[in-house]
């Protein structure tokens, strides 16, 4: 099968256009385009790279694209793949941002966006519910969550500091407790 950089970019561009609703959607798309149709990577490799992507910071879909591209054609493949994922959303958002400013003052657009902002709150709260189930499941995580929430509600704190602090306290706690796995 042809594995030219342009071909890799093209496939990831097509995948990028279809990414709607969260980074994880990229996994079934990779299964279809990369594993089944082109056989550039195997099913096992897909599962593996999905596991790696979980423990790397950054945009999940971009990281998965990077790893897949790397498996296909090393560094060049990784760059082609991440560009393929980024370029379509970049162009679509720019168009949206430029067009929207032309319509932003219409009453109906403002009314719609007022409702949409309420919908965003609902989405944020439902995402918290999902994250909560996966992440707050022990006494330590419960206490950590409560402390962080209290800090955030009563003083302005940089999210970066919160993440660093939480990471350190988890490692510190595990060292003391000798906990091997959460």
């Amino acid at each position, binding site marked *: 099968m042809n594995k030219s950089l342009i071909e890799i970019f093209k496939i990831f561009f097509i995948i990028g256009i279809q990414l709607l609703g969260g980074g994880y959607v990229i996994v079934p798309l990779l299964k279809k385009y990369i594993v089944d149709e082109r056989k550039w990577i195997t099913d096992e490799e897909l599962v593996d790279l999905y596991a790696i992507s979980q423990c790397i910071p950054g945009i999940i879909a971009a990281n998965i694209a990077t790893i897949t591209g790397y498996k296909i054609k090393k560094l060049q493949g990784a760059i082609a793949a991440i560009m393929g994922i980024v370029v379509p959303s970049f162009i679509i958002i720019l168009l949206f941002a430029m067009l929207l400013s032309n319509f932003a003052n219409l009453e109906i657009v403002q009314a719609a*966006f007022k409702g949409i902002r309420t919908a965003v709150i609902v989405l944020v709260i439902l995402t918290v519910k999902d*994250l909560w189930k996966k992440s707050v499941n022990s006494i330590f995580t419960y206490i950590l*969550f409560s402390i962080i929430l209290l800090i955030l509600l009563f003083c302005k704190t940089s*999210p970066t500091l919160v993440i660093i602090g*939480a990471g350190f306290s988890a490692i510190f706690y595990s060292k003391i407790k000798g906990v091997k796995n959460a």
Partner: protein
Amino acid sequence: MLKLYFLLCYEFAQIGIFAIGGGYAAIPFLFHIQDKYNWFSIEELTNMIAISNITPGPIGINMATYAGFKTAGILGSTVSTFSMLIVPFIITILITKLFSKLQNNDTIKNLFMGLRPAACALLLSIGISLLFTELFNTKEINFESIDIKQFGLFIVLLISMSFFKKNPLITILLGAIGGVILNYFI
């Protein structure tokens, strides 16, 4: 002007490195940027989140592109998107090479045990402050200033989305329809 691009780069690189747990994890960082620099308003930011949800592409990239554009035009969006991606890209390449050694590393598992609740708390605090700014039009609890119509819409959306599987596209579409109905018919 150059300073602005440097700040964009600095702030979005932090999102790339520290926003753990999917696109929504970037939201608290964007609110922090809003609060610190006032490059865009809270309303614009919330609209931005909605648009990122209904357009294709990873939500984090969409938000970086949009926020960068609002701050400093097309060059701004290029800087913000690139800065957010570059460090994770390098880490990803390195980790892919070392993968077998890291997969069962206890320290990394323990680290994430702390990072996930933190990401969850960060997002909840944003949800709470959005509730106040959008529904109470204030930053304090003041039930006299509550926007009854929007609060009703909020409850309806929350209940319907808890019953059906959470679908961002449908939620935002319903929100838009609800907003128009509230404005013109109620």
